[in-house]
């Protein structure tokens, strides 16, 4: 009566060990396997094209308050560290604070483009340009059309 139990238990222990080992591996594998890590950030300054610098001094021009501004910076930091979905979450958070800011929608479009979802990127970019109104300052319009051109150039290969 006790013998089968002991074998059973022994196997169980072995199984536990194996399971523990496997789950441990899975955890380590998961941490390093963040999707999108290593891809170049189109919003980073080292991009191979002349990119309108995004700096604090532009805040008033972008018509963004300091809070969404801070979130855009946070999104950059996440992206550069390879945390793409955290970066998207920061951008969406910025969007909730500034839902009619064409800049934030453009940034989200850029992120989707960098993730390879060019169709979504295109839709979001369209949304961004739709938010340009007659009251948008000429400088922001210029800035955004620059972004738009860039995005179109990125999207072309998929079209």
């Amino acid at each position: 009566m006790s013998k089968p139990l002991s074998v059973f238990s022994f196997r169980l222990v072995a199984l536990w060990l194996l399971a523990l080992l496997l789950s441990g591996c899975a955890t380590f594998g998961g941490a390093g396997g963040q999707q999108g890590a290593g891809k170049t950030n189109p919003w980073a300054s080292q991009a191979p094209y002349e990119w309108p610098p995004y700096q604090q001094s532009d805040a008033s021009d972008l018509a963004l308050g300091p809070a969404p501004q801070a979130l855009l910076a946070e999104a950059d930091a996440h992206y550069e560290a390879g945390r793409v979905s955290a970066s998207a979450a920061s951008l969406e958070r910025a969007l909730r604070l500034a839902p009619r800011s064409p800049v934030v929608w453009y940034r989200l479009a850029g992120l989707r483009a960098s993730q390879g979802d060019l169709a979504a990127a295109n839709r979001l970019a369209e949304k961004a340009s739709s938010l340009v109104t007659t009251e948008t300052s000429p400088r922001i319009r210029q800035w955004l059309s620059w972004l738009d051109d860039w995005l179109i150039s990125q999207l072309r290969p998929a079209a």
Partner: protein
Amino acid sequence: MQAIKPVPLLEWRGIFHRAALLPFMVQKKASRASSKRKSKAKPKSKLWWLLSQVTVLAAVVAVGWVVWLDIQVLREFSGKKWSVPARVYARPMELYPGAAISPDMLARELLVLGYREVKTPSRAGQFKKSGSQVHLISRPFRFWDGDESARELNVRFDGDRIAALFDPASRSNTSLARLDPALIGSIYPSHGEDRILVRLDQVPEALVSALIATEDRRFYDHWGVDPKSIGRALVANVRAGGVAQGGSTITQQLVKNFFLDSRRTLVRKANEAIMSLLLELHFSKEEILEAYLNEIYLGQDGARSIHGFGLAAWYWFQTPLEELALHEIALLVGMVKGPSYYNPRRAPERALKRRNLVLQLMADGSPAWAEEVESAKSQPLDIVERSVIGTSRHPAFIQLVRQQLQRDYRSQDLESEGLRIYTTFDPLVQRAAEQAVRERLTQLEQERNLAIGSLQTAGVFATTETAEVLAVVGGRDPRASGFNRALMAKRPIGSLVKPAVVAAALAGPEGYTLASLVNDEPVTVPLPGGREWQPKNYGERYWGKVPAYEILVHSLNAATVDLGMTIGVPAVVAQLRQLGLSEDPEPFPSLLLGALELSPLQVAGLYQPLAAGGYQRPLSAIREVRDAVGAPLQRYPLDVKQAMATPVAALLNWNMQQTVERGTARALSWLMPESAGLAGKTGTTNDLRDSWFAGFGSNMLGVVWVGRDDNEPAGLTGASGAMRVWADTMKSVALEPIVTGLPNGAEWHAIKPETGALADGCADTTRVPFMSNRLPLEQDACMQKDAPGFLKKIFNWLE
């Protein structure tokens, strides 16, 4: 479907080093038994032999029994996992300079979160409100995009907006802080256990002390059973002539709880004792204590049973366990003995007495507590009247969450896997809507001599651009979890369909503009089978030839049918589909006047793209889902698609603002202090059966229905019923006006309203927005007289 990591009942680690010993131990016993048998091969006498055989048999049976119990213990405690219902969280409140949050709104949010109002905040979860300042210490919380640590903040206000966030630690202003999200409910089986798991290191030291002092003073010294206390209980039982007192240790109580049989027979008691010893053999004291803290039954909320101290803290005090004060801890510990008998809501005096007994036992056990215990004894019970969590509080919204989750998760996973669901729910908007419903419906019934309680209502409130559902009203009683009218009651939408008719005309090939003249005269539409349809205007008043924008302003039925029959009903169906309608209505002419039955949620979905510059996103109640240990499972990323050209949406926004300014919704201006810049549309169906209102500002939209469940006439138009509930709700939340300024592809022009002709720079004109590529073909005579230079000047001035 998601792969979900189960929640282990006890840590595997415990089973490892102890369970590994078990087979050897059992084997050892068994081998001793068999060697005995060998030595008894030559019996000295038959009796002796028989006795030894019986002994061996008894030993084998006993060992077998113990082994069997051991399997039970292991299976029950390590193979099974906690059944933890999914936890549903509201949106976190974002604090930043400029945010439309008043001191009262922030204080209300903090109370929903279970923060305590104190004189001087000294730890997380406390705040102080004084005039135009709120001083708080936030709780730490792990979000999808990173951890928000606990921080001290001085929030300064300027009227109804946040002016600055001062961080006393760094002595500087900060640009942004996020509060922890309110726990608003859970998804548990219809009859089942609800719990929030806690780790031992999250449990206040006082709770462990109180528990041990009250339930099992020698917990750290015994091996699962405590002979001393059993002896004490035995004496008491003999005196009482039956089983009256239990000498159960915490371990025994835990065992008893797991085997769900509370009969107090001797065999049970013996089993319980053996299993307790085995449990102690396999697991550490800490593991047993942690399991006990999570398992114990501490109350009943309808069909839901409250298990574990983690949930009990929320259920009775609306606070995380870590933040409980000593007198609150003692109350919970006191309830272990009988949560129903010592229910502090039903038997407050009894509960108070029991609580103070627990406090006394604590002080007796350890003098270190004496001082705190004395002040705790004089505290009131401090329980909350009704718990904010549990689906009983916001059943309508939770139901929507559940509906959306069911696309991705199985029901049993939602009910047992401890998922954490982060939603878009805004407690402040929900509260405003519930209050509006409560007060306004009664008032309407009284004003109009309607039977009290005859009116019903439903509503959905959402953000415009991001299409996040903020609040759902499922009926007049917001706690009723039955029929959710916002999701399930499908009613004819009446005039709410008209913006889709106008949109289809503006985008269609016929070249309509808002200034095109339409016929508002009695009309007869031939139907198949020789029948005829003669739609009538409200009050049978007809306006003759009017610019198309008057259709929405005055909700003109005849003109809508005239326009709709010209562009064709299929074009309207196509427009509705583009706006996100999931069904495919038959293109009958009656559709033009809203013979289309939809739920308030569906209507809100149709209006969302109108309020968001033509970009549609299916209304969403969920932002992200995490598993029980906080690992991300799923995000619901933001994506939009164009449902309508942006200039068309802008034209309709202007048109629906006109409805509020001077049309069927003009009463909004006296229903709420700020109605400028809001857009809306009223809807009323035949015989005043359904009263609808759909309206929006730049940041929020809302759809409200008022009517009767039996579909009898309610006696209310859209403006006299639903619009009032809508206004009452929106005036107490931060609804912002629609931004002025037209998007690219749209421009302002002056027209002569009598002819619809372009009349820039002329007298007696109306300013109307047009798509740049579609201006009125006709120009008024006055324009041709003027010099182009002059015209340009006026034009510039107009811009």
